[in-house]
């Protein structure tokens, strides 16, 4: 039998799907090879020594062998299982969102070390957040905003927030944000884009600060809650426009945030 082509890589497991009797197909995110799809064999059996290392949202050192269609995981040593995320619904739903965004914005065989680093850092920060039961709204929103903003920068979708995307001038007076144009749009040019929304002075300032620093820096800034909610909804709209679809993890995150209730599962008579 010819020697299989083996390679080593660190990876964060983004998602898994059961395959056949006891296998799982994993979607990995790696610093050097971008997204990688690989089979982990036998890991659904309790006797598998690998099962604990190939769970979604686990960071692991892996030995993989190149396959024709899918690669195969030969070994996996966990580096971090982000224990503080597990069993915590606010944190888990946020981590699902982080993973789904990476999955949606990256492709296979495309190196992106900074994005990998960004994901790992954000998961570590998520573990450290204090969850007061309501998900400590402010810090969760800021962490998500800094995660989204960093991800947009690192995948080439940084919004233009210094000049009008149409006329190129620094806007004076009231401005809008255009998801379709990917940035600021001044009052005079506003009709040239289809998807626009008014942008408050405070939200523009927050977008600037998001470019300047990460979560640790943002946390020290005195944002009003309505400003961070405005930025959250703006970034979401922009991401929705870029992906042309809603993310399932966004609606799950929102339902957890609104409070889990039996109301949504009541029969409505049909």
């Amino acid at each position, binding site marked *: 039998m010819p020697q299989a082509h083996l390679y080593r890589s660190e990876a964060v497991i*983004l*998602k898994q*799907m*059961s*395959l*056949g*009797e*006891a*296998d799982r197909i994993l*979607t990995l995110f790696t610093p050097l090879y971008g997204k990688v799809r690989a089979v982990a064999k036998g*890991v*659904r*059996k*309790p*006797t*598998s020594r690998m*099962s*604990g*290392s*190939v*769970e*979604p*949202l686990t960071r692991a050192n892996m030995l993989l062998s190149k396959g024709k269609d899918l690669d195969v995981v030969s070994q996996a040593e966990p580096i971090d*299982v982000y224990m503080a*995320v*597990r*069993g*915590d*619904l606010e944190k*888990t*739903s946020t981590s*699902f*969102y982080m*993973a*789904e965004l990476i*999955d949606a914005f990256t492709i296979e065989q495309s190196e992106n070390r900074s994005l990998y680093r960004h994901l790992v850092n954000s998961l570590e920060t998520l573990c450290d957040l204090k969850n007061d039961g309501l998900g400590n709204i402010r810090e969760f929103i800021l962490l998500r905003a800094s995660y989204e903003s960093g991800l947009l920068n690192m995948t080439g979708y940084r919004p233009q927030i210094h000049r009008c995307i149409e006329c190129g001038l620094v806007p004076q007076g009231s401005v809008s944000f255009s998801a379709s144009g990917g940035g600021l749009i001044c009052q005079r040019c506003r009709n040239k884009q289809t998807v626009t929304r008014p942008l408050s002075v405070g939200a523009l300032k927050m977008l600037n600060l998001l470019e300047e620093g990460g979560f640790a820096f943002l946390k020290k800034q005195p944002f009003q809650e309505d400003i961070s909610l405005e930025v959250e909804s703006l970034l979401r709209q922009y991401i929705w426009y870029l992906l042309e679809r809603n*993310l*399932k*993890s966004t*609606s*799950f995150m929102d*339902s*957890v945030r609104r409070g*889990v*209730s*039996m109301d*949504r*599962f*009541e*029969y409505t008579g049909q």
Partner: protein
Amino acid sequence: MEQNNNNHLAEPVARLIDEFNKLPGIGPKSAQRLTYHLVRMPAEQAQALAEAILSVKNRITSCSECQNITEHNPCSICSDVKRDHTRICVVEEPLDVLALERTHAYKGMYHVLHGVISPMNAIGPDDLKLRELVSRLKGGVVTELILAINPTLEGEATATYIQRLFAPLGIQLSRLARGLPAGSDLEYADLITLTRAIEGRQKI
């Protein structure tokens, strides 16, 4: 891909290979192997297999109570008056019911969710059989809910979600005792582990 090599095959053979290939865990190679095995099979045996497949589709339905797959609705467990109807054990898949039944340690009811919350695979709470569970619990007969969901990240999120969902009803909630290896599937747990897990369930 291998399918491209199927051009020169007899049409019925290619078609069967194609159908097998759609099944979970069956690659192009296995699909071919299975097909050639069937080609050599005696006609009566092939007939029996075809009938078995059809009767699964025609005679199997889901139990309106526990959502498990069954031939009769309600299923044999839900219609068994000797079993404890005040307890419901919530599991991910029908195979988990079989696994727990093999322990003979549990005499209550079941509820099959048919999955776990997994937004990355486009499965949210609304895609599980939670609506049906809500209406069963609102009936007022059930006093205890046992969450026997796989200890995976998605499984734990689902268990926590259900725990919050039913907290207002004030019924007793428990989870299987720890000891099942993280990331593994319940249906593969050995009997001892599984028996201890269900006997040692803890209040939450």
